[in-house]
């Protein structure tokens, strides 16, 4: 009797701990076999990085994974989970501790976003954008802005959006036209930003505005608080993926903002936006790694249970080779992403092109891995009951935003062919 009871307690313990949903995937991806396999994301990490990764994985499996399908289908932006994540230090991972950041490296951040992304890629991608914005204030804001914003952003009580893209200026962001005119101690902003992640549901926007001449040198970065007079938002966009976070246009109609909300110096805006994006690109590529890791694990599990022609799919050599290729491309992508993170941590002069390489290579290869994993699921892969399609849908946009993968190639080729301009 006691033995049975303790057994029951044991199973209950497992259920309670992971809030596991009894579904067609009744365990968290990865746990049973990833350790000790060639795609183990802990390979090569220090003990401390492994600890950090473990917290992120535990958080992903307990707080995110059981909800990711619902967040997607009901389009829920899970504020409570964001704040819980921030409580562990995920809100301002690579900001200085002085103002409330966690003070970790870009490499640590990459490990964290990859891990969280396994629990929900879309939600993690928003967390990564938020982190990028907080860093921009930590790095370029004055003390007043830092003191006011970083503590509440680090806890994610307040959320941030990054506003660069305009309806007519996407890839060609350096020619943006949203204007900010100084009038006494205020800026008056006019124009519109498109595709803004978190738009309207966030509390502050870092807006790149034209304050001077044409081109990149006439752009400034201005913090526009929610509720500023003249600030409004477009309808919530309907998207293929990234459904656990809203995307909206942000509209400025004689929007009045105090001059003290200028981040950095007048004319520094484009540089600030690009410096932010270097990290953003590593972060978003890390989110793709997590999606691909999960998809590959799901595909591997599927071939072990699905039988056709009288044998398990794992015995068909074509599928074995596919899995081998997916695994190899995942590990190569991870190495590229971690090298780019190192380039940022060590401030290598090649960092812009390395981050671009990481972003284009990892987001492209990882999307293909997710898509191939879906293919391996056959018709089931196309059903929303199976998680693999969501990783595929959520990671598709990583090839488009934070600079399209075509623009990444522009930056890399420029590094090869021209003298270096950006840093």
């Amino acid at each position, binding site marked *: 009797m006691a033995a049975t*009871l*303790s057994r029951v*307690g044991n199973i209950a313990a497992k259920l309670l701990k992971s809030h596991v949903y009894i579904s067609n995937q009744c365990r968290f991806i990865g746990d049973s076999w990833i350790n000790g*396999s060639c795609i183990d994301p802990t390979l090569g990490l220090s003990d401390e990085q492994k600890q950090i990764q473990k917290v992120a994985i535990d958080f992903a499996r307990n707080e995110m994974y059981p909800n990711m399908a619902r967040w997607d289908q009901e389009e829920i932006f899970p504020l409570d989970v964001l704040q819980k994540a921030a409580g562990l230090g995920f809100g301002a991972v690579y900001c200085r501790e002085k103002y409330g950041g966690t*003070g970790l490296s870009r490499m640590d951040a990459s490990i964290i976003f990859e891990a969280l992304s396994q629990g929900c890629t879309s939600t993690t991608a928003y967390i990564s954008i938020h982190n990028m914005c907080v860093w921009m204030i930590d790095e370029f804001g004055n003390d007043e802005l830092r003191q006011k914003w970083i503590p509440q952003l680090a806890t994610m009580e307040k959320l941030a959006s990054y506003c660069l893209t305009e309806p007519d200026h996407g890839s060609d962001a350096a020619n943006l036209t949203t204007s900010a005119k100084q009038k006494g101690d205020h800026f008056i902003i006019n124009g519109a930003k498109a595709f803004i992640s978190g738009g309207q549901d966030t509390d502050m926007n870092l807006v790149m505005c034209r304050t001077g001449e044409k081109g990149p040198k006439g752009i400034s970065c201005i913090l526009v608080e929610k509720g500023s007079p003249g600030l409004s938002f477009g309808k919530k966009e309907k998207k293929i993926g990234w459904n656990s976070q809203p995307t909206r246009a942000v509209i400025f109609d004689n929007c009045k903002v105090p001059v003290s909300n200028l981040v950095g110096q007048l004319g520094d805006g484009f540089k600030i936006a690009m410096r932010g994006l270097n990290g953003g690109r590593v972060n978003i590529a890390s989110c793709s790694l997590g999606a691909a890791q999960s998809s590959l694990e799901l595909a591997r599990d599927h071939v072990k249970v699905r039988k056709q022609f009288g044998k398990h799919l794992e015995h068909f050599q074509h599928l074995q080779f596919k899995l081998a290729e997916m695994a190899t491309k995942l590990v190569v992508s991870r190495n590229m992403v971690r090298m780019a993170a190192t380039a940022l941590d060590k401030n290598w002069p090649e960092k812009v092109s390395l981050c671009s390489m990481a972003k284009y290579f990892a987001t492209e290869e990882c999307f293909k891995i997710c898509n191939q994993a879906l293919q391996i699921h056959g018709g089931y892969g196309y059903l929303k009951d199976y998680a693999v399609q969501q990783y595929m849908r959520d990671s598709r946009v990583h090839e488009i935003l934070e600079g399209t993968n075509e623009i990444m190639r522009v930056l890399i080729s420029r590094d090869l062919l021209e003298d270096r301009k950006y840093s």
Partner: protein
Amino acid sequence: MSALRVLVGCKRVIDYAVRVRVKPDKTGVFTDGVKHSMNPFDEIAMEEAIRMKEKKLASEIIVVSCGPIQCQETLRTALAMGGDRAIHVQVDGKEYEGLQPFHVSKILAKIAQEEKVDLLILGKQAIDDDCNQTGQMTAAILDWPQATFASKVEIDNGSLKVLREIDGGLENIKVKLPAVVTTDLRLNEPRYATLPNIMKAKKKPLTTKKPSDYAVDISPRQEVLSVEDPPVREAGQKVESVEQLVQKLRDAGLIVS
């Protein structure tokens, strides 16, 4: 009574989500390259100790783990959750395979005495071997009262009021300190270590000891003859009606006719 000195046991076990595989030679299960974590009941023990410290009822939390060098990872997690310092009693390879609750309880008892602790909190069992013995044996060796399967613990002026989960339901007991408590599932929900605390944990003291430092002989008292997989579940049968089901159960002697 002044704030308590608390000792918490943290065993490193194969993670609960891992599908355990028996080695072909039946000497045990695969552990190399397999994901390990802190025993879930020990996480609950840690959480309880930390809550006592937060309420200023505990003054210091010492965490201890017996086993191979990798146990230090488990101890770092315990320190990151909120432990103050750690003791690693290193036991490797073959010796670790033969380490039994009997040995561990002797080591824990010695540490409890050396460190002059007032309260020892352990998990009610570890999810690898499910022994459910260490807490009880440790209490016996120390000749301290024990409160096992705790579902609620209150400190009450030199005593503990403990709500226990027993086969028949719940039981309230009161034990005098010093005492040994083992945790059940519903005692609390353990916290995650935060990133800043993981960083701080690096600097917290961790001492490495050997069983001989505590004069404990860890030569095995048991021999494992064979480790086997549980029998594979056989296919079931479909029945047409309730009557047929009842008949089948009767025939199998599972219900009285």
